[in-house]
């Protein structure tokens, strides 16, 4: 009983902020996406679906989707897979687990912008540690590999500015940065699996680690996995810092790293074209919503136990 109105004070501020900060902007963005509003102008014209039409017809935006999906569909499976792998390995260790845990989590803690600058050094075509290291391999058996031989003959790839490598390099950094986060979530998930289940599996006759994994670990990590995958999707859809750090202008060689967040930034912030920026925002939101709804559905459907 207590104070019957107490709940108003409890949820009031949160509700108001939720509306002002999260919901209202969506309405504003939705409205703006049908105009050609440019920041600083006093008014804007209604342009109907023109912005959306551009997004789905112009080649630039085709590149945007290409880059975004390439990034997302590489980074998500890799971060989830590596996160799970690392968590399983670390969890099965008798000693030093803490050390690896801390090391793998370091990239998550570190400002991506700072680390992007460092990676830029590491990938630097001439003074970078990566190509420098690769060059040391020249003259060894590695030259048997044509790609390597080519690198030795002239230069190793410009990892960040070569159209064929850029998106993969940026994705690599995304994976490097993100898998530790998933690892921690999986570790948390693993501690939640009752030890009894493993013993039951053992008593039921499972003998290989693989059987144990299939019978207990993986299914029990179901809810964690759904959560991890969704978070990973949202996080990789939001990739921005690396792209801005490496390619402040243009979104990478031939726009091959022109991801959606950067496109929004470029259009709306760099060029003040709020209308088209808002339209990309809406498309972006649409993607994320669909993904998360799929996740909810999966959670509801598959993991309704415990």
């Amino acid at each position: 009983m207590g104070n019957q109105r107490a709940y108003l004070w409890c949820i009031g501020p949160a509700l108001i902020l939720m509306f002002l900060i999260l919901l209202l902007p969506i309405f504003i963005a939705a409205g703006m996406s049908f105009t050609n509003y440019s920041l600083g102008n006093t008014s804007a014209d209604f342009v109907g679906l023109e912005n959306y039409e551009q997004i789905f017809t112009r080649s630039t935006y085709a590149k945007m989707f290409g880059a975004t999906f390439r990034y997302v569909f590489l980074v998500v499976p890799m971060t989830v897979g590596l996160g799970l792998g690392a968590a399983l390995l670390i969890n099965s260790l008798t000693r030093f687990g803490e050390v690896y845990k801390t090391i793998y989590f370091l990239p998550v803690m570190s400002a991506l912008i700072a680390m992007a600058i460092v990676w830029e050094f590491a990938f630097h075509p001439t003074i970078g540690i990566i190509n420098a290291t690769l060059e040391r391999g020249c003259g060894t058996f590695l030259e048997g590999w044509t790609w390597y031989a080519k690198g030795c003959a002239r230069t190793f790839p410009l990892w960040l500015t070569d159209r064929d490598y850029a998106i993969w390099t940026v994705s690599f950094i995304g994976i490097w940065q993100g898998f530790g986060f998933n690892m921690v979530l999986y570790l948390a998930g693993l501690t939640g699996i009752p030890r009894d289940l493993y013993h039951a599996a053992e008593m039921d006759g499972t003998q290989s680690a693989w059987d144990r994994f299939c019978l207990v670990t993986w299914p029990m990590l179901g809810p964690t996995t759904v959560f991890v995958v969704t978070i990973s999707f949202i996080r990789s859809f939001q990739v921005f810092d690396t792209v801005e750090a490496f390619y402040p202008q243009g979104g990478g060689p031939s726009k091959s790293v022109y991801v959606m967040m950067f496109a929004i930034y470029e259009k709306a912030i760099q060029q003040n074209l709020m209308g088209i920026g808002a339209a990309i925002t809406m498309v972006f939101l649409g993607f994320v919503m669909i993904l998360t709804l799929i996740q909810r559905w999966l959670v509801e459907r598959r993991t309704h136990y415990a």
Partner: protein
Amino acid sequence: MSSISLRTITKSFGDAMVLDGVDLDIKDGKFVTLVGPSGCGKSTLLRILAGLEATDAGTVTIGKRDVTQTRPSLRNLAMVFQSYALYPHLSVAQNMLTPLLMRDLTKTQRLPVIGPLISRAKRKALTAQVDAVAQTLKITELLTRKPGQLSGGQRQRVALGRAMVRNPVAFLMDEPLSNLDAALRVHMRSELTELHRRLKTTFVYVTHDQAEALTMSDRMAVMMGGKILQFGRPDDIYRDPNSLAVARFVGSPAINTLSSEIDEQGTLTVLGESMGRFSGLSQQSVVVGIRPEHLTLSKTGRFGGMVKHRENLGSDVFLHLVVDGHADVVVVRATPAHAPALAAQVRFTMSSDHLLIFGADGQRLRAEHTTSKVAV
């Protein structure tokens, strides 16, 4: 054929010695309970038997085979866990099927998608086995449900079913009923007894609830401090405990214990009254144990006391009496109809036949009662 034998099993966790040279022989087909206070090592012993825990020393033999180094899955024992440990993502049928799949299918036949395709016939046979067991346990209509959709008692039965399908050498159970509510517990107790009677497989059953141990088992092992203090038939243990610790642990309300004396002649004096001569006992201080039901109210009883506290359980009243002239409190069982009121003065008798005499070290002193002086 499938008798189980544990020899000088020793186990420590760090510095703490949990099992201290335990020996235990279980005949084929018996229902054996391990009882004892919390932390005495019951679960550890069971887990060593299952192979889930390694021994520090000692051997585990099943049938004629030394399985001390054999991994659990190869011992052909089935275990029912206190938490049931059902796979929450699998249906009841799948839960019960799992041990069969693990045993009878090859690795490829167990592969996720193609597995079921290439092993249709085999799976069908196994499913039939599951159905048969489900019928026995009356859970056929639950087969498609997930464990989360079952009540405690139903889960219990599924856990049993999963153990039964395999036709194991023995069932190991670690407090399988302790998660159930009182009524269901009583019910499941009789179901388990019934099941054992039908299957005739060895049951090794861990509990700290003595009612379970007393009512269900053929043999009962009382454990304390990492040792088996006594192993025998439940009623023997109740009637004839080897030590004060066992006597105190078994029975509710607990046995009355009274510090007493034996003089040079072997005469036992309890609460100031002589209880007759006992042969073979030298002069010493002893502890005498007598159960509440063996003290009887009687107007002419030799002992007197004042009712300090009454516990009326409806069927019985337990009177806590302060014995006249002594600080001791004894608990006497009385029938509700004739139970005296609080603060009443009563008299009671003590049958020397039921006296249990323990030495200073807590060990039972088995003495012949020579003077047949019957208690008045």
